[in-house]
């Protein structure tokens, strides 16, 4: 087996992948190309061990990536929306990381959704207050001109 046949190029982004990779390391495209099928159709011999990992390109595990923790948005809304809801979002951001680190992917995803929700709550309330304030300021100017 030559070195090049250990590798397949991603049909979507042309990145070079190991032939036994399930998904493309660069774009996440599932790799079930013809190369992989011919490799599995070879009748003789034990299945070859996975190629050694070159130091310049570490192997990517195929398990699910960490859900987004929306930490930046929670910091932004905490510092600019003047509402404690942003801080709730930071708590959930921390829980995304701790739950993912402990292997509980479903709980991490749940915390991720809550982090996003609370960042939006903070932003939404800040926006609503701004709009109401703007309407009242506008009315005050209009009424002041009428007098």
């Amino acid at each position, binding site marked *: 087996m030559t070195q090049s046949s250990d590798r397949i190029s991603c049909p979507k982004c042309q990145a070079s992948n190991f032939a036994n990779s399930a998904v493309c390391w660069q774009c996440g495209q599932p790799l079930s190309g013809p190369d992989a099928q011919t490799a599995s159709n070879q009748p003789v011999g034990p299945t070859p061990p996975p190629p050694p990992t070159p130091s310049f390109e570490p192997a990517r595990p195929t398990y699910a990536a960490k859900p987004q923790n929306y930490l930046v948005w929670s910091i932004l809304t905490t510092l600019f929306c003047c*509402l404690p809801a942003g*801080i709730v979002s930071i708590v959930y951001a921390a829980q995304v990381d701790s739950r993912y680190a402990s292997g509980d992917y479903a709980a991490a995803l749940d915390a991720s959704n809550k982090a996003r929700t609370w960042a939006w709550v903070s932003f939404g309330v800040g926006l609503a207050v701004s709009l109401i304030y703007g309407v009242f300021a506008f009315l005050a100017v209009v009424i002041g001109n009428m007098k």
Partner: protein
Amino acid sequence: MMAASLVVSVSAVRSERVRAVGILAATLCALGLIYVRNPSIGGYPPCVFHAVTGLYCPGCGSLRALHQLLHGHLLAALDFNPLMVLMLPVLGYAGLSQLSLAVRGRALPEPVSCARQIWWLFGIIMAYWVLRNIPAYPLSLLAP
């Protein structure tokens, strides 16, 4: 593991570009407004928490600090909201990362990636919230 979470599919890059343009436009509009109109004079919506309780929240003074910063007055900015000024490099890095995601399809490496660091940040913000409401000399520097 971390690098895999930073990679998005090619089709998602287009929506990331729309997102990046929207975020960039909104940020520039907001910064332009804050540069032109000084929040110290008024005319901006009040902080809900401050209006209801009379206490300062962690974000109080951040718009006034941004105005000072945009005019090059770093010390005045630190006087209004030191935490916000210190967090700006983090936010700026996140903005660059978002831009990188839109242009190259890859975000920059995540600086904060473990729960303990986020809990530290949470603790700092909570302590800041309490301490800047104490009207004694060294702590009163934290108030806007």
